[in-house]
């Protein structure tokens, strides 16, 4: 199983810290899972121009291909101007419409204000649903005071991230099993 942790913005550190923490849980609990961290701050991404994702080169090609090869993706997003960052939306635009078919996608959100708690429900989930993701419905919402000196200090958040990691793996295994059985039943 391949799980990619995607930190969806080009600036700030909190989203990456939370993604890191989630991937660490996965690596510890499920050593057989191959985890990859991709922080968009580390890559020079092109804007989508409508081409097939295989036709992008450099960092853009690496990021799109790595996401397409994943069995599950943990998306971390900050909230910018009451929405997801443009850098994350660009990732969705770069991928084909059915990119998340047969993939599990889970989410964590870091925000400067608790007033943004609905953004993932109203803005991120509809995109993932359109792209055919199987979603871990419960996401983890993290605010400024949960961090101190580049670390998550709120134990409740750490527990929730642990559950997010478990749910991501369990759901991916479950859907893989269901799919295998269903595909075998077709007998072709």
């Amino acid at each position: 199983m391949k799980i990619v942790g995607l930190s969806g913005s080009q600036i700030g550190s909190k989203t990456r810290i939370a993604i890191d923490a989630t991937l660490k849980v996965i690596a510890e609990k499920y050593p057989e899972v191959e985890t990859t961290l991709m922080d968009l701050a580390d890559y020079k991404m092109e804007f989508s121009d409508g081409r097939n994702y295989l036709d992008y080169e450099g960092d853009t090609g690496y990021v799109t291909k790595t996401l397409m090869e994943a069995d599950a993706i943990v998306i971390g997003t900050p909230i910018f101007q009451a929405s997801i960052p443009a850098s994350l939306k660009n990732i969705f635009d770069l991928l084909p419409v059915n990119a998340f078919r047969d993939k599990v996608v889970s989410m964590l959100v870091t925000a400067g204000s608790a007033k943004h708690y609905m953004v993932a429900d109203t803005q991120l989930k509809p995109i993932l649903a359109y792209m055919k993701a199987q979603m871990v419905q419960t996401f983890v919402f993290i605010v400024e005071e949960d961090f101190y000196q580049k670390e998550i200090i709120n134990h409740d958040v750490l527990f929730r991230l642990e559950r997010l990691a478990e749910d991501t793996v369990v759901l991916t295994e479950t859907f893989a099993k269901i799919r295998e059985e269903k595909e075998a039943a077709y007998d072709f």
Partner: protein
Amino acid sequence: MEKYRINPDNGIEFGIYTLGDHLPNPATGERISVKERIHEIIEYAVLAEQAGVDFFSVGESHQEYFATQAHAVVLSAIAQATSKIKIASSSTIISTSDPVRVYENFATLDLISDGRAEIVAGRASRIGLYELLGYNLRNYEELFEEKFDLLRLINENEIVNWSGEFRAPLRDAQVLPRPVNGSMPIWRAVGGTPASAMKAGYAGVPMFMAHLGGAASQFKRTVDSYREAARAGGHNPDELPIATAGFFYAAENSQQALKELYPHINEGMKKTNGGGFPKQLFAQGVDPHNIMNIGSPQQIIEKILYQHEVFNHQRYIAQIDFGGMPMDNIKKNLELIGTEILPAIKKYTAKK
């Protein structure tokens, strides 16, 4: 229809197309050499002609896993090896070519084949060729529209006066040689959405509609939009042929057909498009109302006749060889087409 060398009284035409893909056979993981693949395609056309197939076309894709980038050259070999079957491109990416050169090539092909050549012009679904051939992807739409217009202008006039944005102007230019009858059929390749079909309709150009899968009734909207646009553009839709093109596979029964075809489509699409074909969607391909023609010969006959009732199209074009399909399976399909499918669909669609 005469202008397009089609006589509907003879019933629906049955054609075959290949994208010219060069993919491994998923059963063995092995891929024949590019030389073998090109010879295989030429042989495929010869065998199709022997089976009584009306039309054979070869596509142009400038990317990994394809062998017929120089599709006009391959078609030229086919023209020489055959004598009755119509030959065409599927499609010629006119956006990244000079329409004058394309016309010279295909007019020559028409002379070699004694009036059997046609051009299907498209825009390419993958864009690697823009960089390879030195064009800017930003002009994707404009390049196609301008060059396609010029291609049609050359077809209709031996002396051309033209100026545009992407090519040097033509002043009293004579484009030679001319096809056997002075002009030849030129089709617009359409991806299946009404928007694209309407452009073909407004211009009064025959439509070559490619499709993957789905309900035939869904594509009826595209066909209706095409004919409506043609009417709005001052053309008579009854004089404009429509061709549909998609996956085809015949075997003893539908389950066997799915078994033999699916791995080729799924693995081939993974390699060429970066995403496979879901089994669930593919399984629906055998349904009588699905546009994919997969099943027993009898089921396929019923499907094609149903599609003909829905679309009233003049030509159906089958894609059989995608994804490293072994030549033996292709031959088996051609035999079923020649002995069972073709006679039945001609019998039911020809005017007595």
